C-alpha cells in the first residue's frame, strides 16, 4: 500500500492488527490506554515505535519519543497522520 491511498482508518486498522498479536481475546478500543490495561509493560512502547517506523515508512524523531504518543490507537494514528497524510 502506498502512502497516497493511506487513510486514518487504514492506519488504525494496521496498528490494531499489530497490537492484536499481543493482546489475546481483548477488543481494544481506539481510545483505550494500552499500558494501563496491564497486559504489556513499558518495553512494548519501543516495539510500537519500531512497528510504526517500519509499517508506515516514517522516522519517529527525538521529540516524538513521548509515551503519550503511543498510549492509544488514536494517539498513534495522529502521530503517523501528521507525518504522512
Amino acid at each position, binding site marked *: 500500500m502506498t502512502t497516497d491511498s493511506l487513510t486514518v482508518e487504514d492506519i488504525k486498522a494496521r496498528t490494531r492488527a499489530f497490537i492484536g498479536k499481543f493482546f489475546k481475546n481483548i477488543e481494544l478500543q481506539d481510545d483505550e490506554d494500552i499500558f494501563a490495561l496491564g497486559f504489556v509493560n*513499558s518495553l512494548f*512502547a*519501543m516495539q510500537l*515505535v519500531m512497528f510504526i517506523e517500519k509499517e508506515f515508512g516514517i522516522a519517529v524523531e527525538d521529540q516524538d*519519543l513521548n*509515551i*503519550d504518543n*503511543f498510549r492509544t490507537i488514536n494517539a498513534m494514528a495522529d502521530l503517523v497522520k501528521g507525518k504522512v497524510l
Partner: protein
Amino acid sequence: MAIKKVGVIGAGVMGIGVGQSLAQGGYEVVLIDINDQILEHAEREIRSNLRLFKMLNKGVELDIAATLGRITFTTDYEHLSDADFVVENVVENWEIKKAVHLKLDAICPAHTVVAVNTSAISITRVGSLTKRPSQIVGMHFMNPVPMKPTVEVIRGYHTSDATIATAKELLAGMGKKGVVVQDMPGFVSNRVLMLTVNEAVFLVQDQVASAEEVDTIFKECFGHKMGPLETADLIGLDTILYSIEVLYESYNDSKYRPCPLLKKMVDAGLHGRKNGKGFYTYE
C-alpha cells in the same frame, strides 16, 4: 578517585546496557567485543534503548547523539591502557572470563578497578588470576540495566574497602546504588531467583498451572512486576539452566537440580525473549 574512562568488555545484552548507562552518566566509555558485527549491532541497540529511555522518562534531558558519541566501539584492548575502571560482561564461562581477565590485568594501569559482571562466577577466583586481587569486585547488574536502580555488589575475599568505595562511586555516577554482599555461589539474587524460576517450571511441567497462571499469581497476589516465567524468558532460558546447573555443582545440593522441562525447552531452542519463544511467544 575521579573516574573518567571506563572500559566495558562484551557487547551482549549486559554490556550494551552497562555501556549505555555509563555514557548517560557522562563517563567516557570504551565498549569492546570480538568483532565489528557485534559492535555494529551494539550501536544500533544502544541508540534504540536511548530512544526508549527518552520515551519512558518524560522531560528528561537526553541528547541521544551526544550520549552515543561518548562511546568508542572497538575490538582493541589497547584503548584500556588509561582506563580508570573496567566492567567485564563476557559470557558466564570460566575459561573465557579467565582469558579476558589475564589480558585486562596486563593492559590496564595499576590503579584500575576491574568489576566482574556475573551472577555465577566466584569473584575471589577471578581475583586469584590477577596481580590486583584487592581491586577486583563483583557487580551483578540487572537487565535492563538503564532501568534498574540497584546493583548487587560482591566483595571477594581480598577486595579492599577502597575498591568497594570506587565501585559505589561509579554506580552513583550512573544514578545507581549498590548493595554489598559476600562472595558465595549465586550471591543473594540468583540463589533465590533461580530456585524460584526452577520451581515455577516444575509447576508447569506437573500441570499444576499454566505459565500465565503462575505469573498471574505472582503479579496479582504478591504485587510483583513480573512473574517468574516472564522473568525467565527475559533472562533467557539457556542462561537460567546454566545458572541453576552452576548452583547445583557449587553446593552439591539436590534442591538445585534443574527441572527436566527447562532442559527440554533449552534443547528445543526455546531460549525466551531473545529468540522469540520461551514460555511466551514474542514478535
